[in-house]
Each structure stands twice: as C-alpha cells, then as structure tokens.
C-alpha cells in the first residue's frame, strides 16, 4: 500500500511510525518538520498503520466529521487540501480553533454533523473525501446525509464505533447493521477491525455510488 503524499514512515526512537509535516499539536514527538501521527490516538492513523487501502494521494479536499479537539484533523490538514472540520461539542472546538489557527487550510465549524444543511452554505460541493469519526447513534445516517458534499466518486473513510450504536449488542451485529445502511449510499471497498489500536471500532473505506 502506498501512503498519500505528505504522510511518511519514519523512525522515532528506533520505531517506524507515521508522521506528517506541520505545527505540533498535542505534545507529540517531532523530528525536524515531521511529527508523529499516533495510531493509538487516531482512528484514521490506525487505518493507515494497519495497511488499509486508503484511496488518497494527498492534496484532497476533505470534510471531517467529528473533529473533536483536532488531533487527527491536524494531520489530515497537513497532507490534504481544503479541510472542513465539523464538531458539535463546544469544549473540544476550543482546542480545534487553536489547531486551525496554525494551519492555512483548516476551517473549524461548530455544527451538528447530523444536520448538513446547517453548514452546506459554507462547505463546498464535490469534495474528494469525507472522514468520519462521530460518537453518536446513527453513524450510517450521518454518512448518508453528508454524501451530498462528495464528488461522484468521492470516498468515505469512517471509523464505526460499535458502542455508540448499542452498548449491549454484539459489535459484529452492530457493524452488519451499519454497513447495510451504508450500502444504500456507498459501495463498501474494505472493512477492518481497528484493534489493537482501538477496541470495538471498525474501519470502513467506501466510495459514493
């Protein structure tokens, strides 16, 4: 698998790790311009580390849903083009704003990913990719509603959190339900458990139908 341009594997303390080039955000180890992308703190980082075939080459326009305090989205903005970061909880957005202040292509939006019409006046159409990591029930619905932002063959990279859908159910059953619903809008290209980096998470690569 080839990594998108702007992401490299690099030795930090003798260990090969993912890294991107940009302003440090959360005290991660750095080496010159390169800063470690910790797969244990990032679902997308784990997808890359685990060798999932992520169809990105670098420079893409991206909508990031569930940006939280900006840990992962900071790395995305390091290798992508215009990056729109949606997060609903006010406190993490406080940190997200400082991450955005250090980058020229990151646009923070305090909005609810379940209601794309509240940011469709800001986020452009025909985006190359949606990256989704939302911890709410109805993750497939969020992905479907936001497909409106994607270009015809735009991709979805999602980390599906089983416990957000149903804490008591078997994660496999939850994934099946979520994937069924996703298939109404997307063609699923690859799925993979994100263990050992993230328990009860399924990484999904899909393309808009």
């Amino acid at each position, binding site marked *: 698998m080839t990594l998108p341009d702007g992401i490299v594997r690099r030795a930090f303390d003798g260990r090969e790790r993912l890294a991107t080039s940009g302003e440090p955000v959360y005290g991660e180890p750095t080496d010159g311009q390169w800063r470690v992308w910790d797969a244990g703190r990032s679902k997308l980082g784990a997808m890359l580390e685990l060798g999932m075939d992520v169809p990105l080459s670098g420079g893409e326009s991206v909508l990031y849903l569930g940006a*939280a*305090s900006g840990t992962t989205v900071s790395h995305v903005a390091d290798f992508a083009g*215009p990056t729109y970061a949606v997060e*609903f*909880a*006010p*406190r*993490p*957005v*406080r940190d*997200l*704003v400082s991450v*955005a*202040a250090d980058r*020229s*292509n*990151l*646009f*923070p*939006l*305090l909005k609810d990913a379940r209601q*794309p*019409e*509240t*940011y*469709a*006046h*800001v*986020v*452009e*159409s*025909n985006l190359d990719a949606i990256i989704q990591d939302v*911890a709410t029930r109805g993750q497939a619905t969020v992905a479907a509603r936001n497909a*409106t*932002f994607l270009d015809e063959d735009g991709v979805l990279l999602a980390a599906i959190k089983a*416990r*957000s859908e149903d*804490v008591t159910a078997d994660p496999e059953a939850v994934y099946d339900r979520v994937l069924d619903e996703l298939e109404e809008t997307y063609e699923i290209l690859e799925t993979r458990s994100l263990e050992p980096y993230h328990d009860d998470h399924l990484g999904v690569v899909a393309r808009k139908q």
Partner: protein
Amino acid sequence: MRPSECEGYIPAGAVPDRMTDDAWFAGLPPGDTEGAIDSIASGSAETPRAWPSIAVDKGYADSETEYYDRLRVATIEAARRAVRSREQADDSQLVHAVRSMDDTERLANELAERTAEWAGTLFEEAEPTVAGVRSLAGREPQTDAEGHVLALAEQVDALAEEAETLRSFIERQTPQIAPNLDAMAGSVLAARLIALAGGLEALAKKPSGTVQVLGAEDALFAHLAGHGTSPKHGIIFTHEYVRGTHPDNRGSAARAFAGKLSIAARIDHYSGEYREEIHEELRDRIATIQARTDGGEE
C-alpha cells in the same frame, strides 16, 4: 436578503442568482468580516455548491486562495465566538431552568391542593391531584363560585404545562452541556446537581464526597454540629443506582455513583467529549454492589 438588494455586492451578471443566495458570502462586501462571521454561524443551505469558484465569479474574492483566506478568518472567529457563548450561556440557563421547573411543580401542587379542596364541594368527580384539577380546566362555570374554582384550575393547568415544557427543555439542553453527566444520571438529576453546585465548573471542582451529599446539606450540617449520623446520600438518592440498592449497601452505591459523577463532571467541563468507559465501569460496580444482597433490589 437578496444579494442584488444589498449595497456593496457586485454581481457578475445583471440577473440575481437564486442558486447562490444562500452562500455564506452572499450579499457581503469582501471586507465585511463581522457579516461573514454572522452568516457562518446562522446561515444554512439546502445543498452545497462550488462556493470557491462561485465566490470568484461573483467578485467576493479575486482568487480561490483569497477566498480560502477569508473563509479561514471567518470560520475561526465564528467557531471561537460560538464556543464562548455556548459555554457561558448554557449551564447558567440550565440552572435557571431546573430551579424554575421545581418551583412551578411545587406551585402547581400547592395550588392544586387548595383548588381540589374547594372543587370537592362543587364537582363530584374532582380528584385531589394535579391531574384531577387539570381535568376541570376548560369547563363552563354555572355559578360565581364555580367560576373561581375553574379559574384556579386553569392556573394549575398552565403551571403544570410550563413545568412539562421546562422538563423537555432540560432534556434537550443537558446532553449538549454535560453529555457524560446526562448519560450517567439522566437529564434532570444531572441538571439538579449542576444547579446545586452552582454551575458545571463548580461541580467539576467539588470532591466526590461533596457530590455524594449535595442536596442533603441540612443533614450534613446537623451531623457536623454533633447531631445525628452523617448523611449517606443527597439528591442522588432519587437515582435507581442508590434507591434500587438494598439499604445496607446504599452507602457503597452512593459512594461509587458520586465518584463516577464527579469524574463525569470533570470530563464534561474540561473535555466535553462522551466517554463510554466510565459508564461501563459504573454499571459493573453497581451490579457488584447490588449482588451482595440477595436479589439486589429491595
């Protein structure tokens, strides 16, 4: 407002373009950062469009690079302000709402009691409950006395209805302000804890021993003055985790519950993100405590 009606907007063509009316920059002169911030915060659109190229076509920006620069300045400032106002406003609004709900319910109950007593002499079917009194509201009075009773019944009905509206407001707001407390204690109890502490930040800074006895201040001070035993629980007694535990183990349940509630309050205040792990740990812990007594409940 249509872009064409706004001074300072320079349309590329003479015809106003309905397709672009809902762009965040529609109708804004390029230098109007305040307008852009407002529009990002409160605008909406049915469908996204190729805003960067439209902005260049419409003369909002000379190039897409300039467009993104303007977008960046405006989104950062809009997000910063939205965070500030939501953080400042919300928990204090919640505190007012939960106190008002309690007052309205208490008033409805008191007035219902008085009204029911009177109504019992005039209407055979009047039940001495809030619901009974509310059911009288809307009738046509036949005498002056009935007129007064029915007017009071209307007041009870209005108060009870306002209490219900306040409850649903609290149920909508609490998950946004304190997602972990909301999930752990339920919206209303979470809001009461925030209100008793005097705000989410104040609650986050209280030790869990204090959270455990919030709402039992009378008993606590009596104990400190040398009278009576120390209270095991305050308002958290209303939760199933405490009330549903055998009295012998309620102290342990209240302590475990309060410990996790204060962690939840700290996560809600300092991070704002939902964390499933603490909820799971608490469920396990309560199950263990309740299993100590046969059958757990009662």
